[in-house]
C-alpha cells in the first residue's frame, strides 16, 4: 500500500516535471526565441517512456546566454520566479524543482553532436529539441569516460546505457520486421500478374476436373483432396478412369510415375534456380506443376524483388487457383444437367498453348521437334499405355546426340 502511494506520487511528480520544463521553455522562447535541448534523465524519460526518477530538469541552451547575455538571462528567469541557487552550475530553483542550464556547444566538443543534428519536438505548442537514442548513447558513453561522472554517477550511467541499448534493439527489430513484411508483400505484388494466365487456365481446368469427377459419382471432397495432395492436372485427369475401375494399386503407382516422370526433367532444370531458398524449397518442389515450372523457369523478376519469395508466391497462387477451380467444379458438378462430354479437352488445349508459347520463344526448334517425333514414333510402336517411358529415353538419347547444335542455338538466342 505504502509503496503504491509513493509510486503514484513519483509518476505524477515526474509528469509535472515535464510540464514544468515546458513552462520554462515557454519563458525562454518568448523572451529569447531559444529552442533549448531537453537533456539528461528527463529527456531520456521523454524518449523511452520509462520512469527514471529524474532529479533535475537539465536544459541545454546556446553558450551565449551563459556568458555575454547571462545577466539578462538571469534576470528574466528571476522575474518569472526562478531563483538562482548555484552560479557555477547555472542552476535555478522554482517550487522545489531544480533547473540546470549548460551549453549546447559543449555537446559538440564533448560528444561530437552539433545543435542542428538534434531534432525538434513540439508539445503543447512549444518547440524544444530532443536527442535521439543513438545520440544519448554517444553522450553517456563519452561521459562514462569523464572522471567526475565516472566516480559519482557511474552506476546510473551504465544503467542508462543498458536501457538505451535495449530500446535501440527494439527499434531495429521493428524496422527489420517492417522491412521483411514489405519484401514478402512486394514479391507477391510482382508475382501475381504472371499468374493471371494460370488463374484463368487452372480455374477453367479445375472446374472441368471437379465437374468430371462429381458427375462420375465421386463426392465433392474427393477431387478437392486430390487437387490439394497431387496437384497434377494430367495425372488427375488420367486417374479419373482408374478411380472408376477396380482397385489396382500397382497400376496406379506405375501410371503416376510414368505420367509425372516429366517432373524429373523439371527438377533437373530447377536445381540451380531453387538453390538457397531455405524452408521454401519444400513447397517450391511440391508445387512444381507444368505451369509453375514454366513461369519460375523462364521469369527473371526485377532486381529489387526477392526471388525465392517471388517463386514461392507463383507456386502458392497457382496451387490455390487449382484447388479453387476444383472446389467450384466439385460443388456445381451436382447441378450440371447438360452434356459435359469433351470437357477434358481443356487439358489438351492447355498443353497446346504451352507448346506454342515455348515454340515462339525458341529460335531453333530442335528440342521441340525431337520431342514431337520421339513421341509420335513411340506412340505408334508401343501403344498408348506404354509409350511415355520409351519416349523419354529417346528424347534423352537424341538430345545427347544433337547437343552441340542445340547448345549453339541456345547461345545465339
Amino acid at each position, binding site marked *: 500500500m505504502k509503496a503504491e502511494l509513493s509510486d503514484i506520487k513519483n509518476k505524477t511528480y515526474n509528469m509535472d516535471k515535464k510540464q514544468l520544463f515546458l513552462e520554462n521553455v515557454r519563458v525562454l522562447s518568448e523572451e529569447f526565441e531559444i529552442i533549448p535541448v531537453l537533456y539528461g534523465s528527463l529527456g531520456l524519460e521523454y524518449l523511452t517512456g520509462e520512469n527514471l526518477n529524474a532529479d533535475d530538469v537539465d536544459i541545454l541552451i546556446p553558450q551565449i546566454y551563459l556568458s555575454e547575455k547571462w545577466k539578462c538571462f538571469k534576470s528574466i528567469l528571476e522575474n518569472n520566479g526562478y531563483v538562482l541557487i548555484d552560479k557555477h552550475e547555472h542552476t535555478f530553483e522554482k517550487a522545489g524543482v531544480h533547473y540546470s542550464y549548460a551549453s549546447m556547444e559543449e555537446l559538440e566538443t564533448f560528444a561530437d553532436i552539433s545543435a542542428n543534428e538534434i531534432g525538434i519536438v513540439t508539445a503543447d505548442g512549444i518547440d524544444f529539441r530532443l536527442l535521439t537514442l543513438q545520440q544519448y548513447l554517444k553522450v553517456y558513453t563519452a561521459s562514462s569516460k569523464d572522471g567526475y561522472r565516472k566516480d559519482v554517477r557511474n552506476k546510473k550511467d551504465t544503467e542508462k546505457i543498458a536501457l538505451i541499448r535495449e530500446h535501440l534493439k527494439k527499434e531495429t527489430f521493428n524496422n527489420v520486421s517492417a522491412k521483411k513484411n514489405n519484401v514478402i508483400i512486394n514479391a507477391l505484388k510482382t508475382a501475381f500478374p504472371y499468374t493471371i494466365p494460370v488463374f484463368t*487456365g487452372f480455374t477453367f481446368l479445375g472446374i472441368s476436373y471437379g465437374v468430371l469427377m462429381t458427375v462420375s459419382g465421386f463426392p465433392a471432397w474427393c477431387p478437392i483432396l486430390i487437387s490439394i495432395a497431387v496437384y497434377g492436372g494430367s495425372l488427375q485427369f488420367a486417374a479419373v478412369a482408374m478411380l472408376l475401375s477396380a482397385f489396382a494399386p500397382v497400376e496406379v503407382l506405375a501410371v503416376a510415375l510414368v505420367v509425372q516422370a516429366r517432373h524429373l526433367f523439371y527438377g533437373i532444370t530447377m536445381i540451380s534456380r531453387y538453390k538457397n531458398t531455405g524452408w521454401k524449397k519444400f513447397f517450391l518442389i511440391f508445387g512444381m506443376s507444368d505451369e509453375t515450372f514454366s513461369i519460375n523457369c523462364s521469369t527473371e523478376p526485377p532486381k529489387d524483388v526477392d526471388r525465392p519469395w517471388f517463386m514461392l508466391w507463383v507456386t502458392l497462387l497457382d496451387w490455390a487457383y487449382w484447388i479453387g477451380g476444383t472446389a467450384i467444379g466439385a460443388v456445381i458438378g451436382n447441378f450440371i444437367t447438360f452434356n459435359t462430354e469433351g470437357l477434358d479437352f481443356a487439358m489438351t488445349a492447355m498443353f497446346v498453348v504451352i507448346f506454342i508459347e515455348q515454340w515462339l520463344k525458341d529460335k531453333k526448334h530442335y528440342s521441340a521437334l525431337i520431342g514431337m517425333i520421339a513421341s509420335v514414333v513411340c506412340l505408334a510402336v508401343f501403344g498408348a499405355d506404354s509409350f511415355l517411358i520409351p519416349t523419354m529415353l529417346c528424347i534423352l538419347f537424341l538430345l545427347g546426340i544433337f547437343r552441340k547444335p542445340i547448345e549453339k542455338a541456345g547461345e545465339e538466342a
Partner: protein
Amino acid sequence: MIVMTNTQILISIALLTFGTMLTRFLPFIIFRENKEAPKFVQYLGNALPAAIFSMLVVYCLKNVQFLSGSHGLPEIIAILITGGLHLWKRQILLSIAGGTVVYMILVQMIF
C-alpha cells in the same frame, strides 16, 4: 460407377501423391545443391522443356483413333482453333475455352 471402397480410393490417392512427389523431389535428392550437377544434366535443364511440351501434347492425344471412327477430326480441328486463337490473341483463357467449346460441340453434335 464407383466400384472401389472409400479406403481403396484413399489408398489410390495416396499412391498418386507419392508417385508425384517422388518424381518432383528425386532430382533434388540425387543432385544435392552443394555439389554442382554434371554438365550434361545442366544442359538437359535448358534443352528439355521444349521436348517435354511436345510430348505432353502427343500424350493428350494418345487415345485418338486417327485411322478409324472420327479419324481424330474433332481433335485436329479443335487444336487448330486453339492454336489459331492463341497466335491471334495470346490470351490463355480465350485459347483454352475457345478450343474446348469447339471440341465439345463437335463431339456432341457432329461426330
